[in-house]
């Protein structure tokens, strides 16, 4: 009998699997044609160093030195790795007050991020300042629902970016939150906000149908969920057609594992977010059986620095 079929038939009981010791990853590995490892962060907020050791909740956690360590380890172990960020790179530590974002962008370049999107706080010094800092980024910044025409960011932020990983063609799009009411008018200037659902779907459709992408990732700074009807990743996910994965941010939500729902075509889509400040690095392994069917396994790494008295 076909093992793959068994896996499909057995996969209803999320809770059962969650509770079990079933070696699903070993099974998935055996049949997979391609494997893609997606690493992700969000809302790092200039947290280049770990939180100070002062008795606070996150003391000793995070920091780019630890992040580099885990990322390079995974890059040694895995062939196809993507490193992504869902925005709010800036603001939160004196690094940003003093150096205006240059160390954040240079460090992300040194970590070899594959793509990132922008969050509301990335506008905290204004559109021109953000545009100026992009010279220090060697990775693409994506957003498809802001219109940057006649702003300093025009042609500096792409609606999408396509990355080939082995035989897979991965489309990456970015979605930003409504800036009005959140970011002072003078800081975002002439940027126009378009409906994120429509923009995401239009761009994903183009990547799927015209660019023939195998897998589409949306980097979103909408936020995971809200009490009211405000558009969120949960709402976006249910309204999508061709997006496979939403890497979210803004609400600083610590998810233990991706949240899964059905999209408009009744196919499953997942949303993940790993809190903030680079405390955790999210990881999603996708096992492709062919270019349409895949399984995933997720986990995250908590970065901790231990003080040694020596």
């Amino acid at each position: 009998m076909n093992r793959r079929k068994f896996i499909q038939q057995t996969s209803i009981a999320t809770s059962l699997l969650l509770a079990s010791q079933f070696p699903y990853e070993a099974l998935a590995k055996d049949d997979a044609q391609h494997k893609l490892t997606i690493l992700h962060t969000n809302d790092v907020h200039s947290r280049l160093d770990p939180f100070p050791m002062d008795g606070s909740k996150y003391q000793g956690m995070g920091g780019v030195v630890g992040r580099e360590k885990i990322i390079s380890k995974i890059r040694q172990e895995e062939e196809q790795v993507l490193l992504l960020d869902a925005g709010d790179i800036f603001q939160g530590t004196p690094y940003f007050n003093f150096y205006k974002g240059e160390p954040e962008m240079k460090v992300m370049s040194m970590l070899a991020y594959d793509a990132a999107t922008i969050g509301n706080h990335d506008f905290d010094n204004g559109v021109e300042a953000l545009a100026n800092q992009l010279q220090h980024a060697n990775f693409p910044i994506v957003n498809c629902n802001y219109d940057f025409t006649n702003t300093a960011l025009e042609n500096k932020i792409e609606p999408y970016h396509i990355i080939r990983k082995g035989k897979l063609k991965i489309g990456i799009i970015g979605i930003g939150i409504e800036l009005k009411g959140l970011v002072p008018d003078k800081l975002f200037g002439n940027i126009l906000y378009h409906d994120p659902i429509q923009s995401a779907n239009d761009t994903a459709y183009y990547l799927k149908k015209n660019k023939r992408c195998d897998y589409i990732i949306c980097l979103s700074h909408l936020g995971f969920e809200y009490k009211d009807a405000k558009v969120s990743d949960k709402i976006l996910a249910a309204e999508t057609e061709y997006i496979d994965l939403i890497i979210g941010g803004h609400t600083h939500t610590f998810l233990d594992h991706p949240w899964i729902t059905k999209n408009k075509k009744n196919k499953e889509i997942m949303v993940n977010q790993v809190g903030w400040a680079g405390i955790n690095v999210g990881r999603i392994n996708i096992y492709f059986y062919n270019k349409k069917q895949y399984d995933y396994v997720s986990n995250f790494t908590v970065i901790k620095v231990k003080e040694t008295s020596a």
Partner: protein
Amino acid sequence: MKLIHYFFIVFYLFVVGCAPRFIPSKHTETVLVIKSSETDTISSIDKYLKPFRDSINGIMNIPIGEAQADLRKERPSGSLGNMVADALLKRAQSQYPSTVGAICNYGGIRINQIPKGKISKGKIFELLPFENELIILEVKGNILNEWMQHIAKDGGWPIAFSSKVVIESSKNQSGLLDSVNEEDGGSSIKTRIESKQYFNEQDTYYIATNDYVANGGDNCNFLKPCKQIKTGLIIRDVVLGYIQTKKIITPDNTIRLAIIH
């Protein structure tokens, strides 16, 4: 090993039926521990950051005061927000004695706590990273009531008034403040200080806040028409000065805001 796999497969086949595409994994968490003694030498990133870090730490590690106990960011009010609001009110009153209260947006407080012990300058940069200016806002009572409703809907913001602020609304089925607003045009919600004194719709109140909120930030569009008295002071500097003057910060855990349905 494979026999065991098939045993489980057969077992699950009996239990389950339909076939979604995903096999969610059991949640796993890896803790990567890095010894701080090795962080100085290991990477080019660290070498790149070192001069920035050294320069920042030289300024930021300076202690400016001491917290007698943990200061916490909480809703509807908490000791950390209370301290920030107190600092804004005190400074605003020294410049403009008619100031009756201070309101700070919850999202403007960027860390969850200041732990007991020495407070460094850097901690206040983390608490208030934004270059926001202290503004004294001339607010009509009806606008102040609207502001309070907005604060109640959001779950509470840091405030400092002469005493507790009570945001009242009449009973409603959904228990949601905003649904009452729509039905009754907001007239059923009143805000009062202590037990008696309501904010009079026609009176003018001088409220200390930051320019982000005063300019309509955090969805405070209704504040845009209010006259602003600018101070030229960055709120972070105001709080730094407040702590430096007091030296010892005793957390004020008073619940300053009550939302009554």
